[in-house]
């Protein structure tokens, strides 16, 4: 029988930009790459509060949350997302981030539960592979 192009259970991933910076090109490029890797990308774009992000992640039943942030507010906003997920009993949803995040901050964010952090030099292949691993650790 012909196989459907769509896998039985595609990975669903939320891509959002928390905070106030308007630089969404990186987020769009990543969204497109994840789409081309066969994932269902819920793209919510700019100016998302941590509350918006967690609400969307739960309603959309995503396997993964990717946050792009270039404003410098990462130390305030990213831990807040992790904390909110925990309070909604949804801390099983992994969070990764991309943007301009100094090494020292990145270390601290990883300790705080952000599963992966990508800087400006990250390749799309690397991001897709990491997303896949985080979404389906057993696969």
């Amino acid at each position, binding site marked *: 029988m012909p196989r459907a*192009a769509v896998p*039985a*259970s*595609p990975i669903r991933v939320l891509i959002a930009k928390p905070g106030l910076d308007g630089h969404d090109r990186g987020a769009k490029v990543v969204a497109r790459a994840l*789409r081309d890797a*066969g994932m269902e*990308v819920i*793209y919510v774009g700019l100016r998302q509060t941590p509350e918006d992000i967690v*609400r969307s992640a739960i309603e959309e039943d995503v*396997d993964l949350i990717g946050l792009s942030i270039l404003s410098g507010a990462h130390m305030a906003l990213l831990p807040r997302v992790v904390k909110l997920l925990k309070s909604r009993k949804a801390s099983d949803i992994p969070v990764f981030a991309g943007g301009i995040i100094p090494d020292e901050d990145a270390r601290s964010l990883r300790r705080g539960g952000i599963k992966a952090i990508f800087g400006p030099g990250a390749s799309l292949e690397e991001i897709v592979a990491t997303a896949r691993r985080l979404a389906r650790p057993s696969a």
Partner: protein
Amino acid sequence: MSRAPRLPVAARAVVAHDRRALARLISAVEDRDPSVVPALRALYARTGHARVIGVTGPLGVGKSTLINRLIELLRRRGLTVGVVAIDPSSPFSGGSVLGDRIRIERALGDDGVFLRSMASRGHAGGVAAATREVCRLLDAFGMDIILVETVGSGQVDVEIRDVASTSIVVLVPHLGDEVQTLKAGLFEIAEVFCVNKSDLPGAETAARDLSDLAALGTDRDGWRPTVVSVSAQAGAGLETLWAAVEAHETYLDGDGRRARGERRRLAQEVVGLVRERVGRELGRSVDRDRDLGALLDRVAARAIDPYSAADRLYRELRRSG
């Protein structure tokens, strides 16, 4: 795995307004996970309260923006709103970018609204295969109104009428001349035409062409489509639009029309479930059939014809079923 909820529990959780349980059940339905059926069975008796309203039309006409406005209006009236927003899956990768939350998000602030984005996953017709079941879950969750946004529709994407009791077809000025309105397909399924971007030049002409079309006749239920001009961006005309939807819903309540429509949709659903099952079993039987290769060789060599080969497969399927 997060995708395989324990289902009788999940059904109870949906009724108890657990948003995450609802979201997971929706995923299981989308994935055609057979373990979801007991929950769907259990919830069915609790459905039938919600009104499902379709919002369809070509891409870029402002369906999401319109839905954002409708949610605001319905929430002001104290109604709870479920939204199912469908976008296409890639025929190449199977992936998709679901972008409807961007324009709708402003209206999502409270617990009286639940929005779910769905990818079409290869299903043609403008909706996803599981759309009806997802609407039913939102119904069981207690939503009063369910708005279904189709993919940007082409002329043949009319399947929304199998899901919704009222379909709003959204159009904008300059989509074509009045001959377009005579063509079969999309223009036939509208109970309400919404001319959006009514501040643009040409909007009056578009509304007039549609009114002329509506004047030509009624649908099978005797309903004459209403034409409403709206500017979703500016927030103008929304009350009139919703009044038109309500007028059609009220019309359906007369003379057994709603029951007839419901029956037509249920017949389709039940037959569709059987078809799905037969298709699955046929697939299995084909996979099992070691002689299939030999059979196809004979068809290719013109030793037998495709119809005889199909007869044989069909007989085997009946025997095994």
